[in-house]
């Protein structure tokens, strides 16, 4: 009898903990967020499970390191080596590589720069197509694509590290995870596509719609 009573007492913290867990799981009550501003370790709930990599070679404001979103989990193509058993041709124009690309990789647009300025090998490593080649000859994985982009787009790179370009995920507090360049821009066609705007705003009062053909 006594043992059973003690069992109930022992089970109490577990029950309370379960209640607490249920409470924090409710999306409407994010009470678990640590509010200390000093700590960079604060991680917002929305960031949980977001694949990320620590940014290499670039630091944020105040010399603080930050993270960027991983690219590999989002890649729809890959395993390039299955077809590309030989290295890419170093002089593509001479062998008509452009034409080959347009037949084999018809789904990949080529609107980054004219073919006279850039071709596949400008960014992709000819020997290992699952890596990107930097100007100094070294290679980086797709997760670190930003290192390739900022070689030319250095101004954007600086703003990206500082926070004026790109997009920070989840919130303004705590761990800083910024979208990778390739998360927003298609590297093969970096310009944002024109499209129809969302919604149909109703502007109740302007000179134009209260006095059609009036002023201006």
């Amino acid at each position, binding site marked *: 009898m006594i043992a059973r009573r003690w069992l109930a007492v022992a089970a109490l913290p577990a029950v309370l903990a379960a209640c607490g867990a249920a409470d924090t799981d*409710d*999306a*409407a*009550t*994010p009470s678990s*967020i640590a*509010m200390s*501003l000093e700590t960079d370790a*604060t991680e*917002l709930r*929305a960031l949980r499970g977001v694949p990320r990599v620590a940014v290499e070679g670039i630091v*944020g*404001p*105040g010399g*603080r390191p930050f993270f960027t979103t991983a690219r590999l989990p989002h890649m729809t193509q890959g395993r390039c080596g299955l077809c590309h058993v030989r290295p890419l041709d170093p002089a593509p124009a001479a062998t008509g590589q452009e034409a080959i690309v347009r037949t084999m990789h018809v789904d990949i647009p080529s609107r980054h720069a004219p073919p006279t300025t850039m071709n596949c090998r400008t960014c992709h490593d000819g020997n290992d197509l699952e890596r990107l080649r930097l100007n100094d000859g070294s290679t980086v994985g797709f997760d670190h694509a930003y290192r390739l982009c900022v070689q030319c787009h250095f*101004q*954007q790179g600086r*703003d990206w590290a*500082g*926070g*004026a*370009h*790109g*997009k*920070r995920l*989840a*919130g*303004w*507090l*705590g761990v800083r995870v910024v*979208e990778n360049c390739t998360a*927003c821009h298609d590297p093969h066609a970096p310009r*944002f596509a*024109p*499209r*129809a*705007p*969302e*919604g*149909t*705003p*109703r*502007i109740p009062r302007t*000179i*134009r719609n209260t006095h059609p053909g009036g002023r*201006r």
Partner: protein
Amino acid sequence: MTTRRRRLARAVRRFWRRSTRTTPSGAVDKAMSRREALRFARDAATIAAGAAVATSAGCSRDEETLAKWDEHFKGNFRLMTDREKRETIERLERLARTKIGRKVHIKSTPAKEGVLYGYAFNIGKCKGYRSCVEACKKENNQDRRTDMAYIRIFEMKNGKVDLEDSTADFSHTVPAEGHFYLGTQCFQCANPPCVDVCPVGATWQEPDGITVVDYDWCIGCRYCEAACPYWARRFNWNEPEIAPAEVNANQHYLGNRLRKKGVMEKCTFCIQRSREGRNPACVEACPTGARVFGNLLDPNSEIRYVIENKKVFRLKEDLGTDPKFWYYMD
């Protein structure tokens, strides 16, 4: 019945004691007598009618009437004690549940120490997609019937910033050639004219710089709407209509909780999100990263980087409203 009569007698005694309370100077304190009297009337009515029983789906009809009564005679949020805040929030949650049949969570998270919110908008990056406008409506439980929106995206001709010569209701494919896009919303001015003109103190600036409205204290005179040089305030001409399934249940007392007919509302930088460290819904929705949000008091924040390193300007800066919303370009 006898119990009920005894409770009624006790309520009368309590009311009598309170209404004839004397102050240290010897004067009889009549300041609260009206409110006390109303509360007494309410209590008496409750006891006479028999205590209402709460049901699982919000509250019963009697309870709803009582909760509405209490809501009607509650004080200004800034003058409430913690207990009164808890009680009103509990009532509002029950009323909301009765109304929409879903549980909502209303917070009263206070401003954080050492935080002053600032916002930056990249006019070079905005393409006029208006994803922010739609996200804002969903997040902040705005009226769907009148399609109320806090954010307005102006399409402007290259070369000048002219609000009169631009449109905010464009429907063609964007971005349009030879144009740029400039979004406006509440700029959370450091010197807000809307707060100055409010005759009842229903709107004020919080310590973290967000200007908020106590929807239950607002009398709907719309002075603030007239005073705002940025046209950032909105008025509820009708009871806001939202499909119950679309109601955002994560709410703040000073933010996106359900409003009523005849009160003002405005952008609060998504107070229900920002005070938890999250970005406002517009920042999160922007597909081009044209929106930057952060703490102006943190020298390493992104917003500080923008202000210190980019060419920035503010709208109608000559008015001296000191908006905490900067425009910049690449």
